[in-house]
């Protein structure tokens, strides 16, 4: 019977992606709840990155190696990981829900006749079974999901669902290197690059006024801009605004943009899709203005106003002006 837990450690552009440590914390909790050991899995040309995770409390670190794993491709990663899963027959494989994992893990799971329980935000192990919770409808609903049937369960956890600094440290796990076979790789990657050096570094800003679809037109951005200036802050946006070209991409907050944690974050007309929330949920004080009382942004807001931002923002600007004298 399938037994044990594997946790995938991701590295990219020459460094371990720290979200992997959150996956370690998730796997350790699952291990405690189901009485199973956790082994880390690192894919690469050699054991360089495997050697970096031996400090966690793990049964071991499995370094699956092949020269074709030097640069990430979904074909090579799926081939390599498939052999690891076949050899170990784990009960669970846990991944961080990153873009890289999204690219190859569904392919891997499909080879075992499965999908992933993807983008989970929490889980509960009870009575031998595990209930995973994931978000539906861009964060508007939660769903409790169980896996059924034989074999391995593949699950990914959303960034921020667990804390990397709470992954348990250990005595020094052993690295086991195994050579894996990789078949034909049908895509050739070129070197990753950044489009433009981000001209605006929003990670250092203390106050952010962010706009979403609710701003309705490019002309209306001036309204939010004025508020941001008054507060000595910066303007930012959710993805649709940058896609429309109303603000440059270096103003985008979220999984494909910047991740920020300012003292104050004012979200105007942003519904709060997961991809946006992961970029700003660690802000100190969060204000949300939205017409829809069910908008997910209110789940993480300290202050909320249900209403029209075109009524709220001018009054707010005026009142703050008064307070600032």
């Amino acid at each position, binding site marked *: 019977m399938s037994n044990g837990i594997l946790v995938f450690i991701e590295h990219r552009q020459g460094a371990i992606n720290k979200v992997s440590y959150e996956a370690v914390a998730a796997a350790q909790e699952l291990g405690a709840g189901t009485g199973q050991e956790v082994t880390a899995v690192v894919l690469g040309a050699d054991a360089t990155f495997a050697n970096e995770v031996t400090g966690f409390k793990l049964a071991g670190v499995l370094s699956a190696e092949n020269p074709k794993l030097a640069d990430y491709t979904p074909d090579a990663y799926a081939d390599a990981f498939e052999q690891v899963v076949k050899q170990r027959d784990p009960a669970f494989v846990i991944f961080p829900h990153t*873009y890289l994992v999204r690219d190859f893990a569904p392919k891997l799971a499909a080879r075992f006749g499965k999908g992933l329980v993807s983008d989970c935000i929490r889980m509960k192990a009870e009575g031998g079974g595990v209930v995973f919770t994931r978000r539906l409808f861009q964060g508007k609903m939660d769903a409790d999901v169980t896996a059924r049937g034989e074999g391995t369960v593949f699950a990914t956890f959303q960034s921020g669902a667990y804390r990397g600094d709470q992954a348990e440290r250990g005595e020094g796990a052993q690295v086991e290197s195994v050579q894996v076979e990789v078949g034909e790789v049908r895509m050739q990657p070129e070197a990753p690059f950044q489009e433009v050096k981000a001209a605006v570094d929003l990670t250092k800003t203390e106050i952010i006024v962010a706009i979403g679809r609710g701003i309705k037109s490019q002309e209306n951005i001036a309204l939010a801009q004025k508020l941001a200036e008054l507060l000595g802050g910066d303007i930012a946006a959710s993805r649709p605004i940058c896609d429309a070209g109303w603000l440059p991409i270096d103003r985008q907050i979220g999984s494909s943009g910047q991740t920020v944690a300012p003292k104050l974050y004012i979200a105007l007309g942003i519904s709060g899709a997961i991809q946006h929330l992961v970029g700003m949920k660690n802000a100190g004080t969060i204000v949300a203005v939205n017409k829809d009382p069910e908008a997910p942004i209110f789940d993480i807001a300290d202050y909320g106003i249900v209403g029209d931002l075109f009524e709220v923002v001018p009054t707010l600007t005026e009142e703050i002006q008064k307070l600032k004298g």
Partner: protein
Amino acid sequence: MKIVVLMKQVPNKDAVLRVRGDGKWVEEGDLSFEVNESDGYALEEALRLKEKKGGGEVVVVTLGPQRAKSVIKDALARGADRAVHVVTEEFGQAGPFAAAKVLAEAVRGESPDLVLAGLQSDDHGYGQTGVIAAELLGLPHATIVIEVDWSGEQLRVKRELESGWYQWYTMQTPALLTIQSGISQIRYATLKGIMAAKKKEIREVQPAVAPGESEFQTVERVYLPLKQKQTQFLGDGDAKKGAAQLAEKLRNEARVI
């Protein structure tokens, strides 16, 4: 050159969702539906590739109940050449593997040169159906694609990585790509297009496998998210009053301004 586009119908983005009586899904009776956002961009990309190549065929494949016809008709009006509708009233909650399996069977007979899909659905948000379908069809894939260059013999795609990084891949074809939202401006259907669509073929087929048979994850319960923070709602429906209270609270309670 033949391009297949996988398109799904999902509840309207602004829809107010209520949990269904059995607690396992949302009440669909009073919802309005629309095309899944990124699938719309996948179609647009297919149409542009066909135009650049100066010929070929764009075939829409949709899995869903009869109401999903509105997505198909709209795609035909925008310029798709024909459609295959895998009709089922029961696949609403299908997991990614089951949905991908049915779609892969519908695509297989088409032998396309390229398959495009949105990167994830706005309802379930699994983000896997395209990738699993590629595996089942034996095709190489690339996800979160924001630019497709097929001007030469080779297919080159630009992928979005995280935190502002990008990467180009050269792909063997046939291939499957999942397309990111917002990569182009989606065209409107013209009156001429709408008229022409009426003559285009929509072939109805039955799913090759029954829902549930090949799925391993079950939605046990759907509910409104537990609040992570105690939100203070201000103004009580009066936006201006709320704004005044907010200014005061930001100053004196949160002390952030």
